């Protein structure tokens, strides 16, 4: 299969993820969208690994999986802590800080 298709899919998924991060309010959904972005990158890496016929992309993708997991774990932890502080979990309502 043409490498372009993989890249197209990965680009689309990445774009969906990025759009989600920007537009979504619920931090859990934002985390999911982040996963999409990382997943898209993995796909691109694997496609390129196939194209170049070396293993670097595979190794990279494996690393990305772990990173994604760690990020989600941390993200969940913070979201839970926010829940416990009886905070509305909506990124738009994180207004305590000015930005």
């Amino acid at each position, binding site marked *: 299969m043409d490498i372009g298709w993989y*890249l197209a899919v990965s680009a689309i998924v*990445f774009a969906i*993820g*990025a759009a989600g*991060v920007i537009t979504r309010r619920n*931090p859990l959904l*934002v*985390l999911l969208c*982040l996963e999409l*972005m*990382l997943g*898209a*990158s993995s796909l*691109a*890496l694997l*496609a*390129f690994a196939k*194209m*170049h*016929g*070396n*293993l*670097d*992309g*595979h*190794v*990279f993708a494996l*690393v*990305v999986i772990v*990173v994604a997991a*760690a*990020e989600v774990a*941390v*993200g969940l*932890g*913070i*979201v*839970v*802590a*926010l829940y416990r*502080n009886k*905070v509305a979990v909506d*990124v738009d309502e*994180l207004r*305590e*800080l*000015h*930005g």
Partner: protein
Amino acid sequence: MTSLVSAAVEAPDIDWAGLSPLLALLGGSIVVLLVGLLRSRTARHGVVPFLTIVSFAAAGGLAVWQWDERGALISGALALDPLYLLTALGVAAAGVAATLLGVGTAAPREAAHGEFHGLLLVSGAGMVVFAGAQNLVVTFVGLELLSIPLYILAATELHRRRSLESGLKYLIVGSVGSATLLYGFALIYGATGATDYAAIRTALGDADLRDDVLLLGGMAMTIVGLCFKASVAPFHQWTPDVYEGAPTAVTTFMATATKVATLVAMIRLFDVALPGVSDVWGPVLAALAAIAMIVGNVGALGQSSAKRLLAFSSVAQAGYMLVGVVVGTQLGAEATTFYVLAYLVMTAAAFAVVAAVEREAGTDDGVAFEGLAQRRPVHAVALTLSLLGLAGVPATVGFVAKLRIIESAVDGDYAWLAVVLVVGSMISFAYYLRLIARVWSGAPREAPTPSTAVAPLAGADPVGDAVSGVRSPAPAVLGAVWPTTVVAGIAGAAVLVLGIVPGPLMDTVEAVGRSLPTIF
């Protein structure tokens, strides 16, 4: 898949001595984590910070020990060169400062001492990896190893909503940056077929990839991702919020060590892997640097919170530091390295004072600094020196650093950037001086009592500090002040001494330029 399972794997060479700074940090983090589990209060409150400092100091010491060594660690994954060792030194210094500033504060206590300090050490290790990486994969690993603990650390004050918010914000923005960077890396890999910096350089030399869409897109996304990390405008929006919300000790570490590691990694990536296409990324980075200088300095003008002010100033400073990367010369690499180290010292001093004020007044608002000169002269002098240094006044290390940056800019045909830089510095005087004026004028105020009591403790997990069976009562003060005095005093003195006698540090940094033979 077939290739994956049948690929021959050979055991890589590992230079344990060269790796030792890294190992000291990682090993330290494990020890600290486990010691933090002990029941004894002394162990958790005293031994853990002490061991943390020992680990950081050991990492720094080992880096000095390895100073004359050159080569590669783990089959070329990491470079054993001055950049790597200087980063280890810088991170060690920042780590010691952050640990000291954390002594007795709420953050380590709420995060069960071991965790707080262990994460600090792991993050430090990540920075060293990030700065030493010679490979896209290792770079990414280092980046995440440094970032993820920082996300947690930012949120360690579990009962302060701002802390949690800042952690979540940092996580989301940081992860977006990481993902973007990763995609950029993927595209660069796609364009060149290699993840190794040296191989990428060779590939770029072999084929004319100047107009390759993959490479251009990859570089663009890489730049964006790195700029998120280094908080270069316009990717800086998270910085003030996170700096303000995170516990000050963590902010100190974040502001100093992260900057060191990120800038060094940028030097390495752009000047080692991608020097051949510097005419492509150079103008882009230059524009970003200029934007960062302006946005950071203008943004800082309206801030009353000292932490936010320093956050915006760090955006501007990131812009200054970027100049050395932009020009892509040995001179530039040296200038940026020198600036980064100078910045580390100055910022550490500033944040130490902020921490002290925060402990006494319960807030970091500018008003709380009034009369500091009478209350705490050492802090006042240290803050003054560090802010003057950040502004670039002679006789501070900031002046020499700025001098080098300007020199490299003029030398690298980016004189306009130097002009933008000084215009930015000029704006920066307005807010630095305002804070300094607050410190030195104003009625000497009695040290105000902390405005808010800290909520009772418990960890994120169901047990929290209850592991020990001890629930500490809400503390009356937010921690002792003496550690901040130590940090502020030493860092403030360093700002002055290095400003008057910059020779030794400058000679040290010169080794950086020599160790990067790929650029001129």
